[in-house]
């Protein structure tokens, strides 16, 4: 009789335990499906943003990089040819600003209403490059090695912008 009661209680315990385990499994499954759906939604949104906003305008980003690089090349040539003067510094600063302001209107302004954080980061990087460039350009001790520093700064900013534009894939 005692043995029978013991088996009965074991049976009840096993049933309760299996119900709890099953309930836990269902909860875990639902949670995972929910998390997955949330991640998928976020990824779809980023993919959509990239396809509709970034990709059609990516040529403009690369055009900005190419024209900036050509400006720095031109600055190096001016320096090497001994044609560097205050007026040429003013012209170079002006030309680079025109490039930057055009980039803001054609790309950053488009990104801004959809992803303000990304727009602010890109604009911050570009502004940082412009500040560095003008500080060097109008420094009393401006020399050829400063042009190399400008190039380094430019390549850093370029890679950071590319990283920001494609990081959603990771």
């Amino acid at each position, binding site marked *: 009789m005692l043995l029978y009661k013991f088996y009965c209680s074991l049976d009840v315990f096993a049933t309760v335990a299996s119900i709890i385990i099953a309930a836990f499994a269902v909860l875990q499954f639902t949670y995972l499906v929910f998390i997955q759906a949330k991640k998928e939604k976020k990824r779809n949104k980023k993919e959509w943003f990239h396809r509709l906003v970034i990709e059609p305008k990516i040529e403009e980003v690369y055009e900005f990089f190419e024209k900036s690089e050509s400006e720095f090349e031109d600055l190096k040539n001016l320096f090497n040819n001994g044609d560097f003067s205050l007026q040429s510094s003013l012209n170079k600063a002006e030309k680079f600003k025109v490039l930057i302001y055009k980039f803001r209107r054609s790309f950053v302004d488009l990104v801004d209403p959809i992803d303000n954080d990304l727009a602010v980061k890109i*604009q911050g990087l570009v502004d940082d490059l*412009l500040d560095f460039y003008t*500080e060097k350009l*109008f420094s009393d001790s401006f020399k050829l090695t400063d042009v190399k520093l400008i190039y380094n700064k430019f390549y850093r900013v370029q890679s950071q912008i590319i990283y920001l534009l494609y990081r959603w894939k990771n």
Partner: protein
Amino acid sequence: MEMIKGFIMIDLGDFRTKGAKVFTGRNRGKQVRIKSQIEAVEKNSNKVTIKVPEDIYSINPSFLEEFLRPVVKKLGKHKFYEKFSFECEGPYDINTDLEEAVDRILRENHALV
């Protein structure tokens, strides 16, 4: 009787770093905004002139945005240009940089997110 508010000049030369030929950076813009008390100056005068020294060759939007943000936001584009004028003593022309900074400040008000 309504008090006739005067004309005030802010000389950027008073806020330059020794030897600097440019005004750049948001932090610097903020510092000059606080030191020059531009908001109080705007409040207490009809016209404000900002003097740019002869040997200043660039004032970048990063600086101008922080320096001018409160007054541009308060006045709006049209009234800002009516009230504020810039006097550049040297070869530097501030207009393009100023327009860029004002556009950026006002764009912030129109952000969707």
